[in-house]
């Protein structure tokens, strides 16, 4: 049975390889009853769980019931078929990033950041940009060779584009935290349109980030990279610099080098 090691096919692991054991919880909008439990069990079967067991069912008022269900997942996944779109870069530390910028640009890298439209969450973009950083990882403001302009939250896309032009930014960092009704997708699309309208398609490196942002989503929306939870300044800066080099090559001081 257990040949998954060779073929690299995996199933959920409870306490024995390939037992397929999973747990889940959900609510059905029905009163607590034996029928409700049976409904939950059949639902689990339809979800692809063999031998489902409703191990807990609790009434949540007269109209709703909470279920905890165990079962054995019928499905399996071949790890060899998995590919994930991830930003391509090697994580450098702060000193190496500073050195790379000094070496390749011969001036400071200009990074503009904002949390856009109606979204008022600043902590994420601050974690990346403010000197203090996050979890012991210093932010971009503290990088010698970075000029970090953090515009905070609720920044209108059109205003942001004007600032990007005025600051002659190399990199734009955009944060989106609220995702209800896909508002982040709407906002990121709008910004992308504004950027395109302003002709900022080519040079500017544009990165999106936030707890529900994936690289794949960001690419789909026309961004160069997407960063999710647990990202730090050095990740973004490493990506941005390596992307800059991919586009411009090592051309010390010549790439718009007339700037101070």
């Amino acid at each position: 049975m257990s040949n998954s090691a060779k073929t690299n096919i995996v199933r959920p692991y409870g306490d024995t390889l390939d037992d397929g054991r999973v747990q889940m919880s959900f609510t059905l909008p029905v009163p607590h009853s034996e029928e409700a439990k049976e409904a939950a069990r059949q639902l689990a079967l339809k979800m692809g769980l063999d031998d489902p067991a409703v191990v807990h069912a609790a009434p949540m008022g007269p109209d709703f019931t909470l279920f905890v269900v165990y079962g054995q997942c019928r499905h399996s996944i071949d790890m060899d078929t998995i590919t994930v779109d991830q930003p391509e870069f090697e994580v450098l530390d702060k000193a190496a990033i500073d050195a790379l910028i000094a070496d390749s640009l011969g001036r400071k890298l200009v990074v503009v950041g904002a949390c856009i439209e109606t979204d008022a969450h600043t902590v994420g973009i601050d974690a990346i940009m403010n000197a203090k950083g996050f979890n012991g990882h210093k932010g971009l403001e503290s990088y010698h060779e970075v000029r970090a302009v953090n515009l905070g939250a609720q920044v209108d896309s059109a205003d942001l584009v004007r600032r990007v032009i005025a600051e002659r930014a190399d990199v734009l960092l955009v944060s989106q935290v609220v995702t209800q009704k896909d508002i982040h997708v709407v906002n990121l699309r709008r910004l992308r349109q504004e950027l395109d309208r302003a002709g900022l398609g080519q040079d500017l490196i544009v990165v999106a980030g936030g707890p529900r942002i994936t690289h794949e989503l960001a690419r789909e929306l026309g961004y160069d990279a997407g960063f999710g939870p647990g990202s730090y300044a050095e990740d973004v800066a490493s990506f941005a610099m390596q992307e800059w080099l991919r586009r411009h090559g090592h051309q010390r001081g010549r790439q718009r080098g007339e700037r101070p």
Partner: protein
Amino acid sequence: MKLALDQSRIDAARAAAARIARAVHAEAMTRTTVAVERATLRLFGLDGVDVDYVPLPNRVVDHLAAEGLLGHGAALPFAGAMLEHGLDVQALGEAVAQGRITLTLPRDIPAARAKARALAQTACARIRANVATREDKLESAALQRTPWLYLIVATGNIYEDITQARAAAQQGADVIAVIRSTGQSLLDYVPYGATTEGFGGTYATQENFRLMRAALDEVGDELGRYIRLTNYCSGLCMPEIAAMGALERLDMMLNDAMYGIIFRDINLQRTFIDQFFSRMVNAYAGIIINTGEDNYLTTADAYEAAHTVLASQLINEQFAALSGMAPELMGLGHAFEINPALENGFLWELAHAQLVRQVFPDAPLKYMPPTKYMTGNIFKGHVQDALFNAVGAMTGQHIQLLGMMTEAIHTPFLQDRFLGIENARYVFDTMRDLGEELSITPGGRIERRAQEVLAQAQAMLEEIEAIGLPAAIGRGQFADIARQSDGGKGLAGVVTRAEGYFNPFPELMLPESLEGGPA
């Protein structure tokens, strides 16, 4: 469980906060705002919108501003015109909006004053009737033990909110808060009617208040309990939403003297004027306010910035007192937000919570759950919430906003609330009298930490007193966010009071001790 605290420090800190608040208040009372005047008209009974969905209170106040009359306040021109044209409140509002009547300063000022007073008295009578209804209902309802279980609904659709709120009440919630839609705080008008579309919350409208109030009364009657209703006063419409809350018998309102300035970039001068009026209305309506100090700990570090919470609470307390609010209505906020990775973090949470309890013995403190360090690991999150509940139980908090294990992922599902309530009930019951049985080691870690935070808060308040509150906010002393006096949204809605400015509500709503003051 008692901390040994230096009472003279508490007294000195409180006295400094009182002087800080009075300085700002005196300045604020030389001006009024569009929102205060709109609230006045709403209390008179003006409601509804024009063909473009602009609320009539906005139309009338904009008209007064265009006529250069706003400095006199809305009450006199409006009441005078009612007399002159023989129209009722709504008819006059519509006539002004349609451009059929131009408001002027009344010729007979004493008569207009008397009319405005009469309108205000009618409003006050309605609010007092609401207070009486609440008291009656509380009397016949089962006694609610503290901490009260405070739950949030936030679907964006008032009818879905009602379904969720009913379920939460049936599961044991004592208080239901309807979270507002993203961005409402920056609207300089209050949306109208029942609403079904909001982002991250549901619009605060008078009709939505009424619908939810009716639903909670109904489910409360079924359950033999009184379910308290909460909404938000914060934002550009603080005074108006306070008026709506008073008229529709809300029981609690988020109302912080500085939150709008710091977290919504609303102009500072505007906020200090608006918060005075809105808290006066809250106090008169017997509405418990919830202050927002918990928010500081999301942008600043909860351990390092603990003293800013205490300093801000003392300032909020003094502003509330200037609005005629008794300590029993001051739901000062604080939170369990220390990084779970910090060694002995639980001790510091205990120290902070007990400190606040002792500094404000009569306040129905509002204790907020961990949010910032909640993650996609819902299992750990449930443990974090249990530890939060333990501190709430041990330190005798009054209003416990229940943590949701899915905090980092989405606004609560129905089952998240259920599990949150189950968690809280378990902890509160199993630890019911633990706080009374324990004593804090004299001179030990917890006590030393509390003393340190108190001393830092006192020092901070003395520093703020020296430079003034606006300058302190300008330096980013709260939440690491700096705001300037003439920056932010809504400054255009601030008007200097003209000679003879009149508003009938302070003399009816403020206790006598304050009435003679600058208001």
